[in-house]
């Protein structure tokens, strides 16, 4: 944990329930109490109906790969990730709706044809610091 060398996000008051859930291994998502739609990233206002009645719900942690890419260039990726190339970044369509960015675990970056757009994935969390556990996704 102390040796986590990649960027660690800074939780803020709006997103704190998400990060609290992450520490317990749960995917918490913001949902509008009026239109019932889940959104990501967390907001104080629903981006679909502009209601400010936002509640947090525990999600299934399941999703599908919307698209992905294999990062090969040390100089282009953010600090801390250069030593990890090649690695696979992906956008995940959440089972509850809307989309997250992630790094895919358990895939072969040297064989991108083996990774399926539309394929099912499951969330997991990595303890980057005492306060921040970072979500990653892995094919089921």
């Amino acid at each position, binding site marked *: 944990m102390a040796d986590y060398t*990649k*960027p*660690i*996000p*800074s*939780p*803020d008051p*709006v*997103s704190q329930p998400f990060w609290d859930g992450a520490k317990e291994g749960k995917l918490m998502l913001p949902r509008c109490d009026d239109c019932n739609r889940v959104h*990501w*990233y*967390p*907001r104080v206002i629903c981006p679909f109906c502009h209601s400010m009645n936002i509640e947090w719900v525990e999600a299934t942690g399941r999703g599908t790969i*919307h*698209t*992905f*890419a*294999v*990062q*090969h*260039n040390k*100089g*282009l*990726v*953010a600090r*801390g*990730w250069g030593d*990890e190339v*090649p*690695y696979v*970044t*992906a*956008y995940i369509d959440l089972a509850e709706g809307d*989309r*997250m*960015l*992630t*790094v895919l675990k358990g895939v072969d970056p040297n064989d*991108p044809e083996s990774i399926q*757009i*539309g394929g099912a994935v499951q969330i997991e969390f990595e303890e*980057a610091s005492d306060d921040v556990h*970072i979500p990653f996704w892995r094919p089921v």
Partner: protein
Amino acid sequence: MPGEASKAAAIIGAAEANDIGYPQTPKSSLTLHIEAINNVCEMTGIPIAAIDGIFSAGWSPQIAEYLGLHPKYIDTTAVGGCSFEMHVHHALAAIHAGVINVALVTHGEMGFSQRFTQGKGTGRPGGAGDPWDPGTQHTMAYGLGGAPTSYSHALNRHMARYGTTQEDFAEIAVVTREWATLNPRAVMYRKAGEGDLPPLEKGEWGGGKRGHTFGGPITVDTVMNSRPISWPIKLLDVCLVTDHGGAVLITGPELARTSKTPPVWIAGAGESISHWNMLEMGEFTKTSAGRSAAAAYKMAGMGPEDMEMAMIYDSFTVTAGITAEMLGLAPEGEGFRLWKDRHAAPGGRLPINTNGGGLSFNHSGMYGMQLLVEAYRQLSGTAEDGGFSGDPGKQTSARSCVVNGTGGSLSTTGTLVLVSDD
């Protein structure tokens, strides 16, 4: 029926800085601005002192101060490479409303040479911005950095959705390079049959990091064999990183008639946004250019079938391919065919990116000004003049052009419909 603002203003001149590309002696971004401004004012005969509106991507107060101007309209919209197409839209509106008479749209960016000045003096701010910014907070953990690391996701999605291939998109780079071999101002200019340029000396141009030869014609194989950057994007799917300065002047009809240079009319203009962080992009194979183009075509009373050429932002081959679809120039999923079937090539029915594009002419980080300068040169019939922009390029017969800038991560778009003087 064209909209009320259609042709309420014209671009009356467009010029570049004296040294663009990879200059031997780096000049500051501000100097690149000023050289281009001086050149465009000389070519049009409009004195710098007559400028009463300044439009730039973040530089307008500094430009005004440096030139001792007190403009009545100050616009510093900076939303990525399409900012300059939006500036033209805003200038059209400001002139149509009678607020100003002479609008300057200006650009200067030492995209290449900044490597010589980084870390000197106060340098550039090194922080990643506000850590609580949601786009930062919920993406920073995954290491996405330079633009190629994001745009590759759109290319992969396009291939999965439409069955397109990396080779299809490589055709865009090949044809665009062909245009560059006709334009001596292009970084990748080199005629077929000329021998390889000698490799760059170590220590020259960035510490020997570019110790390879380049320029001249390429093939699909050249693109496919270039090194992987962010799969499925390879090096030759990616634009250049160069220096550039450019400026255009925009006036109403009366002043346009007194210019020493031919006017190119702004028949239509539109702008839009779909997201800022790619995390918020909806369908990865569509951009807001669908909306900005619809607005521009509506104002112009014209459609894609009326366009005789196109200047399409090509930060990456995928940017150009998708945008051609959004502009209605090709069916969805088939934008690449304009290049593969050589319609976009020299001699084709719809020339695209006649300067050699961001891929092979010049791309300074923001490329929207380069699009404007080339569209002006083509539609004013001055593409073969050395004039204020150095060497001549290849003149086409086009009398109408759709210009589309794309900024951010396929986020923001500005579309213009420009037409030659009657």
